[in-house]
């Protein structure tokens, strides 16, 4: 099997599984309970929280554990909107955000909030000047993702963050796709709220984090017990938090080296594909991109047909966000970049990872060459 869908999810590392297995076998208890074993569970939880905090340059008290990236995004956006509705009811985001941001903003619109969805240019980038123009005295939150999950295009969050800061507006960034691939540092991003997800960095599923800068107004999404300083109720999933912290530490240990190697593989892949297959467009190629992501449009062939052919050859890829697989509508990200619906329908995403080898890339290029020619031979376009 050749797995080229690391932006959807990643295999959990055996080191991480071992940590979690050990913890679950030897330590148990409710991390908020009284007695000895529970205190040890709490110690593990707090050590892991501190480790995750360290990885992004935050304080442990600024880390709220959630069930994943989607919940983190919902907590950030709904939580800020609720906490700040006295200030105003306007939010700014972009048209290329993950559905966990877009759908949440749309939901807030039904509740009387007003949302500006900024466009992107043909390279898939949000323009900070547009953000500035969209700001009103009513603006309570700006939410712009760190890098896009489909194209890998890195957004100018640092500039947008300081701009938001100057206007006294809370800034949220969805860094689910950047963690472990490029540096995610609180001080550089200038964000008040940052969403992270464990299963994208070879950690367990069902766990994520929202960084909440000290003093940021935020209303909880899930109320109940006073876990996570009252910002997220529910018995703490300490084995998963420990797994996440192990995964992110491991990822950061070798990030620079991995990124260089993976960029090399990705670039070779794109060059060879462009050389061997005509009518290929690399979406977002003109931008600063994540090392591992390649978004490819093959003129005149349907993306899902490419994917099924790849699948039959044991190559795993996807057409964009996994959560909309099976939906028939073309990618909102690609349409926002100005592609027409047929082009969007002809696009697939290959996202590499730490297990990806030179041979994987060679095999993938060979397979794609054959598949595209085959599908074009039956295409009506």
């Amino acid at each position, binding site marked *: 099997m050749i797995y080229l869908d690391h932006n959807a999810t990643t295999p959990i590392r055996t080191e991480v599984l071992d940590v979690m297995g050990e913890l679950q076998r030897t330590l148990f208890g409710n991390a908020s309970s009284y007695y000895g074993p529970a205190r040890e569970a709490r110690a593990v939880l707090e050590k892991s929280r501190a480790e995750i905090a360290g990885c992004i340059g935050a304080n442990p008290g600024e880390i709220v554990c959630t069930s994943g990236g989607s919940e983190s995004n919902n907590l950030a956006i709904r939580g800020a909107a609720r906490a700040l509705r006295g200030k105003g009811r306007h939010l700014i985001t972009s048209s290329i955000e993950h559905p966990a941001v877009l759908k949440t903003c749309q939901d807030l619109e039904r509740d009387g909030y007003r949302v500006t969805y900024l466009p992107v240019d043909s390279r898939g980038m949000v323009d900070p000047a547009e953000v500035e123009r969209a700001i009103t005295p009513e603006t309570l939150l700006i939410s712009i993702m760190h890098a896009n999950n489909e194209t890998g295009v890195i957004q100018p969050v640092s500039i947008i963050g300081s701009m938001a800061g100057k206007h006294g507006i809370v800034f949220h960034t969805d860094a689910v796709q950047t963690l472990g691939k490029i540096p995610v540092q609180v001080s550089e991003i200038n964000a008040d709220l940052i969403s992270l997800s464990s299963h994208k960095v070879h950690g367990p599923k069902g766990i994520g984090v929202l960084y909440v800068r000290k003093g940021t107004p935020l209303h909880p999404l899930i109320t109940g017990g006073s876990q996570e300083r009252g910002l997220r109720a529910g018995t703490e999933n300490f084995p998963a938090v420990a797994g996440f912290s192990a995964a992110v530490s491991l990822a950061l240990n070798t990030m620079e080296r991995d990124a260089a190697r993976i960029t090399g593989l990705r670039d070779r892949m794109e060059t060879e594909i462009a050389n061997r297959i005509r009518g290929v467009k690399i979406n977002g190629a003109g931008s600063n991109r994540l090392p591992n992501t390649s978004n490819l449009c093959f003129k*005149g*062939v*349907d993306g*899902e*047909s490419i994917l*099924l*052919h790849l699948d*039959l050859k044991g190559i795993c890829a996807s057409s964009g966000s996994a959560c909309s*697989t*099976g*939906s*028939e509508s*073309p990618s909102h990200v690609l349409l926002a970049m100005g592609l027409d*619906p*047929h082009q969007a*329908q002809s696009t697939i995403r290959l996202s590499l990872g730490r297990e990806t080898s030179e041979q994987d890339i060679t095999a993938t290029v060979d397979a794609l060459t054959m598949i595209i020619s085959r599908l074009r*031979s*039956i*295409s*009506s*376009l």
Partner: protein
Amino acid sequence: MQDWKDLYRQSQADETTGPILFYNDTVLDHFTNPRNVGEMEPGERVGFALVGDPTCGDQMKLWIRVEDDIITDIKFRSFGCPGAIATSSMATELAKGLSLEEARELTDDDVITALGGIPEHKKHCSLLGITAMQAAIQDYLLKQMMAEAEDTDDDLP
């Protein structure tokens, strides 16, 4: 893991579960080796149609050749998803050799049955092949009517 897959297959029918993309072997066969791919030169005995599915952007072209009211040959080209390709291929197989009258009674259900089923949310794709074929038959009949009309015209003094 055989049991999981079985269960998974069953649950395809259950519209309450999420999107499922589990094509059976017949569908995969028609997808990887679509029958009757190709084009035909326009001609007196040839019907042609170009149809699109507005839901998903799929598009297909289909040609039939008719001799003595029998569809003797059929060709198609498709820009579409696996469901569209497989159902179109199967539709051409079913129609080939039928009389025009018989062919006009083919439905998308016939195609799906012949394929042994396709995932629920892909069913609309199965319409494409049938729609194209019916359109091609119409095109052929129209051509015949016009030719006959011309013949009749010629017969006039």
